[in-house]
C-alpha cells in the first residue's frame, strides 16, 4: 500500500447538483460504506451501520434499497462516518490573490480536512458582485475537483457600501448569501435598504460586525496585553456598537441576518437576547476564537494577528458557553492563507489571518474532548448547523441528502506541523498541537475526492 493519499482530479460536470440521467458506475459511482459508526447530528443517529450512495446522493442508511447494485465497497469498520463539513466563511484567495493560494490548492486541502463545502466571502478581485464571477469560481472549483465552493455575493456593487448589488441575480447564479464583509456601508439608510431588498428574495445577509472608526488602526484586543505591548487596540465596542445597529435594522426589516466571526462576550449576549426575542438572527464563530486569547499575542506572534482580534479569556469563555448552549450554532474556519512574506513583519504590519481549514474539524472535536459539547452537538456546529443556515441539502447522513461524507479515524493521533499542511498558507498558531484523529476518506456528491490508505480492520 502506498502512503500517498489519493486526490481526485478535476471533473467537468456540475457537481453542485446530481447530474440528470447520470449513468450508474460511469458518471457517478454507487458506494456502500460498511460498518462505520455513523453519526448524523440532525437526527442524532449514532449507530454502526451501512450507508448506500447512488446518483451523488445518499439513498439509504441501514438496509440496502431493493434494486441497489454497488460499484464500490468501503470497509469502514473502526471508523466514523460523518457528514462532510460546511465551512461558512473561508478565503481561498482566488480570483485575485493567487500568490497566496488558489481554489485548487485550498479545495484539495479542504477535502483532506473533511470539508466538503466552502463558502467564500465576496472580497475577491474581481468582487463577487456579478453572476459572471460566481460562474468563474464555480468553474475553477469543478476543474479543481475537490470541495464544493459556494460564493457569498456582495451586498453592494464593488462592496462600495452605496449601490446595491444585483442580489437576486447572484442568488440565481448560486450565491448562498450576501455580505459586505468588513467594508463600511455609506450610512445606515443604505444598510436598511440592502437588508429590505435581500429580504424580498429571502436572501441571507451575513454581517461581520465591526465599526470601522472604532476599530481604526487597531491590531489587537484593547485590553491589558495590548496595553503592555503598546499595540493599538480594537475595543469591544467596535463589535457591539456595529451589532446593535444591525439588530435595530433587523427589528425594522425582518431580514435574515447571520453574524459571522463574533469575538466578544457582550456580542454573544446580545445575540442571545435577540434570538430570545424571536429575531431571525444567528451567529458564527471561528474555531480559533474558542481556543486562543489575547494572551497568545504575547511576544508578538504574528500568526495570532487576526481580525477580529483574539480577545480576553472572559470573552473566549463566553463564546465557548454560547457555542455549548446553542446560541452560536455555527463554527467556521475564517481561513485566510498567506504567503510567508505577508507574516514576516512586525506584528501590526503582518497581514491578519490564520490558515485554518485544516484545524476546523480537529479544534471542533477538541471541544468534545474538553467537555464543552457532546459529539453530536459539536458536529452540528460544522455540518447540519451551517447547512440549515445556508439551506443546503447536505450536512447530514440521511436518505435524500447529497452524499457529502467523510470517514474519520478516531485513533489516528497526529501533531500539526505547519510545513505538512496542504493549504498554500502555512500561517497557523496551532503548530505543535496534538490532535486525536484524522479524516481518511472524503466524498463530495458521491464521488471519492480524497482517500488515505488505512490498515485493514
Amino acid at each position: 500500500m502506498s502512503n500517498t493519499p489519493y486526490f481526485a482530479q478535476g471533473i467537468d460536470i456540475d457537481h453542485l447538483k446530481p447530474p440528470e440521467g447520470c449513468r450508474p458506475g460511469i458518471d457517478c459511482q454507487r458506494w456502500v460504506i460498511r460498518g462505520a459508526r455513523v453519526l448524523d447530528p440532525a437526527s442524532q443517529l449514532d449507530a454502526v451501520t451501512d450507508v448506500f450512495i447512488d446518483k451523488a446522493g445518499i439513498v439509504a442508511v441501514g438496509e440496502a434499497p431493493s434494486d441497489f447494485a454497488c460499484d464500490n465497497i468501503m470497509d469502514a469498520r473502526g471508523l466514523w462516518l460523518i457528514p462532510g463539513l460546511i465551512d461558512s466563511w473561508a478565503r481561498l484567495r482566488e480570483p485575485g490573490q493567487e500568490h497566496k493560494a488558489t481554489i485548487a490548492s485550498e479545495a484539495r486541502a479542504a477535502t483532506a480536512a473533511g470539508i466538503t463545502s466552502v463558502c467564500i466571502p465576496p472580497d475577491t478581485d474581481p468582487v463577487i458582485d456579478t453572476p459572471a464571477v460566481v460562474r468563474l469560481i464555480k468553474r475553477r472549483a469543478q476543474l479543481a475537483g475537490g470541495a464544493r465552493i459556494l460564493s457569498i455575493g456582495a451586498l453592494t456593487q464593488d462592496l462600495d457600501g452605496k449601490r446595491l448589488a444585483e442580489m437576486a441575480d447572484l442568488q440565481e447564479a448560486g450565491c448562498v448569501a450576501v455580505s459586505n464583509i468588513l467594508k463600511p456601508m455609506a450610512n445606515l439608510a443604505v444598510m436598511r435598504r440592502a437588508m429590505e431588498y435581500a429580504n424580498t428574495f429571502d436572501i441571507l445577509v451575513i454581517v461581520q460586525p465591526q465599526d470601522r472608526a472604532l476599530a481604526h488602526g487597531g491590531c489587537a484586543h484593547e485590553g491589558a496585553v495590548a496595553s503592555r505591548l503598546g499595540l493599538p487596540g480594537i475595543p469591544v465596542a467596535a463589535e457591539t456598537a456595529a451589532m446593535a445597529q444591525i439588530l435595530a435594522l433587523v427589528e425594522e426589516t425582518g431580514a435574515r441576518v447571520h453574524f459571522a466571526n463574533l469575538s466578544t462576550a457582550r456580542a454573544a449576549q446580545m445575540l442571545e437576547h435577540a434570538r430570545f426575542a424571536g429575531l431571525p438572527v444567528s451567529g458564527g464563530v471561528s474555531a480559533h476564537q474558542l481556543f486562543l486569547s489575547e494572551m497568545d499575542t504575547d511576544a508578538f506572534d504574528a500568526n495570532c494577528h487576526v481580525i477580529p482580534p483574539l480577545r480576553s479569556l472572559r470573552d473566549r469563555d463566553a463564546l465557548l458557553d454560547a457555542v455549548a448552549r446553542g446560541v452560536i450554532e455555527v463554527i467556521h474556519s475564517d481561513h485566510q492563507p498567506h504567503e510567508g512574506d505577508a507574516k514576516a513583519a512586525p506584528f501590526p504590519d503582518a497581514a491578519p489571518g490564520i490558515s485554518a481549514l485544516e484545524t476546523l474539524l480537529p479544534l471542533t472535536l477538541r471541544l468534545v474532548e474538553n467537555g464543552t459539547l457532546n459529539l453530536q452537538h459539536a458536529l452540528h456546529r460544522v455540518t447540519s448547523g451551517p447547512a440549515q443556515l445556508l439551506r443546503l441539502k447536505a450536512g447530514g447522513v440521511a436518505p435524500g441528502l447529497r452524499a457529502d461524507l467523510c470517514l474519520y479515524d478516531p485513533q489516528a493521533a497526529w501533531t500539526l506541523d505547519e510545513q505538512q499542511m496542504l493549504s498554500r498558507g502555512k500561517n497557523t498558531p496551532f503548530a505543535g498541537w496534538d490532535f486525536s484523529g484524522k479524516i481518511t476518506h472524503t466524498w463530495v456528491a458521491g464521488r471519492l475526492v480524497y482517500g488515505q490508505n488505512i490498515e485493514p480492520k
Partner: protein
Amino acid sequence: MAVVFVRPKLPKLARDPWAIQFDSDGHLKHLLTIEGLGAEWVTRILDTAESFLSVTGRDVKKVPLLRGRTVVNLFFESSTRTRTTFELAAKRLSADVLNLNISTSAATKGESLLDTMRNIQAMQADMFVIRHEQSGAAHFLARHVEQHVSVLNAGDGWHAHPTQALLDVFTIRKMKGEFAPLRVAIVGDILHSRVARSQIHALNTLSTGEVRVIAPRTLLPAQVEKLGVRVFHDMREGLKDVDVIIMLRLQRERMEGALLPTEDEFFRLYGLTPEKLAWAKPDAIVMHPGPANRGVEIDSEVADGPQSVILQQVSNGIAVRMAVMSLCMGGREE
C-alpha cells in the same frame, strides 16, 4: 577604570515570552524590553554604567571593549538624541558605527524590514540598534538575526524604549539612592508612550514604592493599572508626596484624534508649572525624556529650574548605552 564582566547566570523560563533576550547560557544578548530582565540585570546594567561615567569624564573618552565590532544604527523614525547618544556610546567603546536613516532610503523603495536587515547583516554587522514605528519591530528583528548578532531596541512603536528607561532609573538612583521609599509620577500621554511603558517596568522591577500615572482618560491605555501603577486624573492629588516627576512629550497630532480639546486646556490641567511643582515634595526632581514641548507639557521655568535633571538624563544616556552595548556583546566568543 574597572569594568567587570561577570554576568549572573539567570534561570531561563521556557515559557517566558521575553526569554529571547538571553542566550542559552542566560547571558543578555538582546535588549528589547525591560520585562523579563529582573532586578539583578537592571542593577548590573546600572552598575556597569556607573563605571563608564568615569570614561566620559576623561580627556581620552575611549575604551577598546568593542574594537573591531560593527554597530549599525537602523533608524526607521527620525531621532536626534537617541541616535547620537547610541553613536557616541558605540564610538567610545571603539566600535565602527554605521548610521542608516531608513525613512529616506530602502523602505521608500519598498524593501521589507527583513530584507534591509539581512543585507546589512551580510556586511558583517555585530549589533543592530533599531528604532521603528511599529510595536514589536525589535522582537521581530531579534527573532530573525543570525546567532552572533545583537539587537538593541531604541524605541518600537508604543511598546518599549528600554535604554531610555534605564537612563531614567540611573538618573533617579544617582539623585535619590534607594527606590523602595520613592513615589514616582509619570505625567501626560501614557497611551502612545513607549518611554512610559519601559519606565513603569523598570521602576517596578526595582521595587519602587509607588508608581503613578497622571493623565486624562483619553491618554491612558486600557487597564493601565495592570501595568502596576496607581492612576490619577488630577495633578494636585497625583503629585502629592511625589519624589520624582517624569513629564512625557505630547505630540501635537493628539489634538486631531479627538483625544484632547486644545493644548491650552492640557497645559492648564497637566502642564508642569512652578505652582504645580510645589504640590510635590520640596526636593522632588523633574525629568523629561525629550524633546520637550515648552508651554505644552512643561513650563520653561521648571524645565530650566533647579529641580530639573533633564540634561543629566542626556549625559547619563551615553554611559547607560555603553553599558548595554558592552554587556550584550560581552558574552560572545572573542
